[in-house]
């Protein structure tokens, strides 16, 4: 008997669709383009400190407002700091804030949506009405309000952004859970006497992951935007730490004199947001072909 013959049938059947899903994802132009952009920027975020030609906080008053050149590819700012190095360092801040914020809001939102969608009844009512209330605040204003309570700083910005995106994760998860909870395998698990949490985490959640993965990618895009906006308003990352949003707000005062100060950090934000958006949209096509855009 060959080795292949002893592989249980279920394993073969379970892995096939997954493998074809990966194949389909890798053939999807949006997923590929988005992944490449995100990967490049993630590498910049991780290795930026070694790639940067200058110290991002080192001032050189002799080289103030130097236009883009071979030495300073993105020019210099009002303190003579190298904008290219600052953009590279800024990637780390943006990605760190985005991943931690989305990690928090994803965990809390998915748990709330899972419990609310699976259990239904009054728990669902209470959780979803609370989400409706949070949803009623325009995102930026809610983040500003949370920052007003917690105070300025990058750590608080993460919490503020996380709070803004909890209701979105909760709604998306709840919707996916409701469509799964009536399926046969859930009924079977119930009939086998498995506990609620076990059923939710082992059977329902894995089958509701598609929309959650899509939402994670889209939320990372929004989180990068939100961090940049908060730093732009002076509430997020504080000087001298380089942050794309902060750099834009500094560059705004010198638009005519040194437009590069306002152009390159903005391009960096847009590229990251575009990468995660393309990836999210592509994954939606692959994971949930029924949803039309």
């Amino acid at each position, binding site marked *: 008997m060959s080795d292949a013959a002893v592989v249980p049938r279920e394993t073969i059947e379970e892995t096939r669709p997954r493998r074809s899903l990966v194949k389909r994802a890798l053939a999807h132009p949006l997923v590929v383009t988005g992944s490449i952009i995100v990967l490049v920027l993630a590498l910049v975020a991780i290795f930026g400190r070694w790639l940067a030609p200058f110290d991002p906080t080192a001032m050189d008053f002799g080289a103030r407002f130097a236009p883009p050149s071979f030495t300073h590819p993105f020019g210099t700012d009002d303190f003579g700091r190298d904008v290219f190095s600052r953009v590279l360092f800024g990637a780390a801040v943006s990605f760190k804030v985005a991943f931690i914020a989305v990690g928090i809001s994803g965990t809390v939102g998915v748990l709330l949506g899972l419990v609310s969608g699976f259990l239904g009844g009054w728990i669902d009512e209470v959780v979803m009405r609370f989400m*409706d209330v949070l*949803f009623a605040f325009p995102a930026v204003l809610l983040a500003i309000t949370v*920052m007003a309570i917690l105070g300025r700083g990058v750590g608080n910005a993460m919490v503020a952004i996380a709070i803004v995106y909890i209701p979105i994760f909760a709604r998306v998860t709840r919707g996916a859970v409701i469509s799964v909870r009536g399926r046969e395998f859930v009924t079977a698990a119930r009939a086998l006497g498995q506990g609620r949490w076990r059923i939710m985490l082992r059977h329902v959640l894995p089958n509701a992951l598609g929309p959650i993965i899509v939402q994670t990618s889209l939320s990372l895009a929004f989180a990068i935007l939100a961090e940049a906006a908060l730093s732009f308003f002076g509430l997020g990352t504080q000087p001298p730490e380089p942050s794309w949003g902060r750099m834009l707000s500094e560059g705004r005062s010198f*638009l005519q004199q040194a437009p590069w100060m306002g152009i390159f950090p903005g391009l960096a934000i*847009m590229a990251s947001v575009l990468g995660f958006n393309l990836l999210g949209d592509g994954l939606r096509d692959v994971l949930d072909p029924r949803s039309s855009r």
Partner: protein
Amino acid sequence: MSFRYLLQRLGTLLLVLFGVSLLTFAIIPLVPGSPARVTLGVMATDASVAALEHKMGLDRPLPVQYLSWVSGIVLRGDFGDSLINGKPITEQVRQRLPATLVLAFAALLIGLLIAIPSGILSALRPGSARDLGVSIMSQIGVSIPDFWLGILLILLFAQVLHWLPSSGYAPLSEGLVPYLRHILLPAATAGVISGSIMARFVRSAMMEVLGNDYVRTARAKGLNERVVVRKHVLRNAAITIVTIIGLQMATLLSSVVVVEIIFAWPGLGSMALTATLQRDYPVLQASVLLFATSFAVINLLTDLSYVLLDPSVEYA
């Protein structure tokens, strides 16, 4: 639309508004330090801070403070006084609310002028260069930070071409032309972004209708394509488009907050940021409450219009 459904939705709205008011009220008890100290400054003695707290009613139990705050707003339209200049906030709101409303409407108008034609044109020729162009435009629109687009527009139209003012506001009393010149850039910033997002949804709404049997029948009857689009497709896609506009208002209002700050537009959004930076919490509360309330009401109207426009929608 059944009366019961209307009552049910109004009930939900009241519940959401109650929650919104509780969270907004919670700002002051949650912020570190006393609002009285913001007014008196860091050098004030504890006794004078306590005296002002008593005068402001901050030493009362929280439920009492909440009831007096809410009843002041609901019954008398009184949002309290600013901690910084001591003036009634209602006065500020009265001056700033029209500016925000005008900006939001102008932005929505620009957004629709972009979204509807481009959405329709791309849906009529899916896969064409035109369709690809609209799709790229909307991806960029979703990804471009509104504050950066604002900066780029200022750079181009105010600082390089000198066509439009870079920021500020001109009241209508100074004449229509200065008024429009000041509103154009901020409205375009928020409008271009929401327009490019809406274009995507208009396209998919159109595509859905175009695939229907009655469209095929209309074409098979030999009707002119223009008539088919106007009489059959647009009329049916309108339901989805109205819903999209409603849902898009959240993004639009968020953009309006940002744009007001960039362009020093004297509305409720810039009021919120200034209040946050100055720790003028009652002013922040007023702005947040007004934005959230209007958004909750817009949501309700969107839902109701959806049911009104499409009698086949099941309301449960």
